[in-house]
């Protein structure tokens, strides 16, 4: 069998914290809080694995190029949807890029990262053709601007996830000219 040694189901379900089936909120009308807790092992496959390992182990951000339409995808994909081809050609992109869009949620959900102010951006890294959704940091929210130049700040301890990029910060160190797009 190809692939990583899978975590056994026994070990997988041990990671879940047990809880009562219901918390009854009201008997009439009858309402209760219930749970649906499912543990999963996910196999991201060869393309995503290569991307995450390069990010984790070497701090490099890799895109993948379609040999037909020349689009460089970030995050990388296994198949170009438009040309319906398998993709193989890796290209290093970033770590600098251009902010395509941004938003600042004024509310916080459980699933949001614990950083304040919470700012999301879509960044096109130099050398890539697609936007990457990520966080923005070290920045005054009022100074954000579409088209501004940003740079990836890597996490100190990297684990093989998209959060191995800590966030993107504005470029302050002198004038920055975007690299020519490679396509």
């Amino acid at each position, binding site marked *: *069998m*190809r*692939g*990583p040694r*899978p975590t056994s*189901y026994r070990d*997988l*379900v041990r990671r879940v914290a047990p809880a009562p*089936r*219901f918390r009854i909120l009201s008997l009439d009308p*009858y309402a*209760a809080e*219930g749970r*649906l807790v*499912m*543990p*999963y*092992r*996910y*196999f*991201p*496959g*060869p*393309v*995503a694995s290569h991307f995450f390992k390069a990010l984790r182990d070497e701090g490099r951000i890799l895109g993948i190029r379609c040999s037909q339409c020349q689009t460089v995808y970030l995050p990388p*994909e*296994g*198949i*170009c*949807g*438009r040309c*319906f081809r*398998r993709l193989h050609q890796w290209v290093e992109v970033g770590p600098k890029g251009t902010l395509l869009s941004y938003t600042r949620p004024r509310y916080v959900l459980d699933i949001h990262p614990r950083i304040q102010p919470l700012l999301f951006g879509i960044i096109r890294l130099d050398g890539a053709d697609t936007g990457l959704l990520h966080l923005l940091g070290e920045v005054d929210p009022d100074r954000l601007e579409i088209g501004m130049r940003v740079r990836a700040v890597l996490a100190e301890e990297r684990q093989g996830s998209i959060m191995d990029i800590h966030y993107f910060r504005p470029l302050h160190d002198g004038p920055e000219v975007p690299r020519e797009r490679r396509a």
Partner: protein
Amino acid sequence: MPERVAIVGIGQTEHQYMRPDVNHEEMIHEAVERALQDAEMNIHEIDTVLMTNMDLFEGHYLADAMSVDGAGMYGRPGFKLNTGGTSGGTAVAAAWHHIASGVFETVLVIGWQKQDATPSIAALATAREPFYDRGLAAGAVGIFASMALQYMQEAGCGEEPAALARVIMADHARRNPYSHLKLDLTVEDVLASRVLVWPVRLLHMSPTSCGACALVLSNEGRARRSPKPPVWIVDTETAHREQSVWRGGCVEPAPGPTAIEVAASRLYNRNGIGHPSREIDVWELYTPSSWALLPWMELFSICEKGRAWRLVEKELIRLDGPIPIEPSGGVVSTNPIGASGVIRVAEAALQIRGEGGERQVHKEVRTALASAWGACHWIVIFLLSKDRP
């Protein structure tokens, strides 16, 4: 008069217990590439893509959205659907309707499942009502146990026929390069395997598998340009009685004919089939347990009531027999659930094409019947033919 519907492309993965080497999009793409290759078509000739899998098994809400590129759905008006165990059958039926309606010329239909992500039975149990029976219910084996008990009682047979049926399916599966389980079994092996719910034993039941199966369906105009002779899906029928079973369970058998009898009789009547076992050359039925085969052979009118176990005993359902059943090795050999219904239709079509290889049934195959079944007593069936309807 609906448009005639043909199968012009068939592709599937080598089904396995686990696929840690790919994500679901990449696994789907393997089957899609093969189906398009088989049809000698490119993705731009496909009008729409329909997809199916069982929800929750992979932990992805909108698992189809993540697989748009690999599935060939980019820019096409397709959708994902799910009807439980019958999902693959329902997807093929929906594709059939898309073409029969005259609106679409070509439809790519994909069934898939990746059962290596989580214990699937826990996902299945969430189909139950949260307050009523979710905390009690435990999978589908019990359904087959009560089916088996009732069959033994009414037909007067012992445990051997269902075991022999399993052995025959294993013999077929060993000849099928795509099959997940390729076991070399004896009746004694089956009867020595662990009891799950008596009289159902481990080897009577289907495995959990990973895999995908894709079909290209087209209308008659497009099928004329097909490099391989088209296989016609003459007709399809769906019947179910899930309300009575799913919500609290009525006494089985509930009054009235079963969903299988309803669907089969409608299909036979519409197509003038008076003697199914003589007029249908091969049967690829969705039997999640080899115990289910015995009552279902009778409900499909393959034989009279109480006779199925004798036909199995005489081994008439083998590839070289007069009533070949499950030439693929069946769901008991391969069960990527969302794909299983599509695989039944694919296998029936391969048999009609004569592309069964080592598992090709020996007699000439001009007609086939394929089915899909779900634990909510839902059934989807297809009549396939070599001859244009």
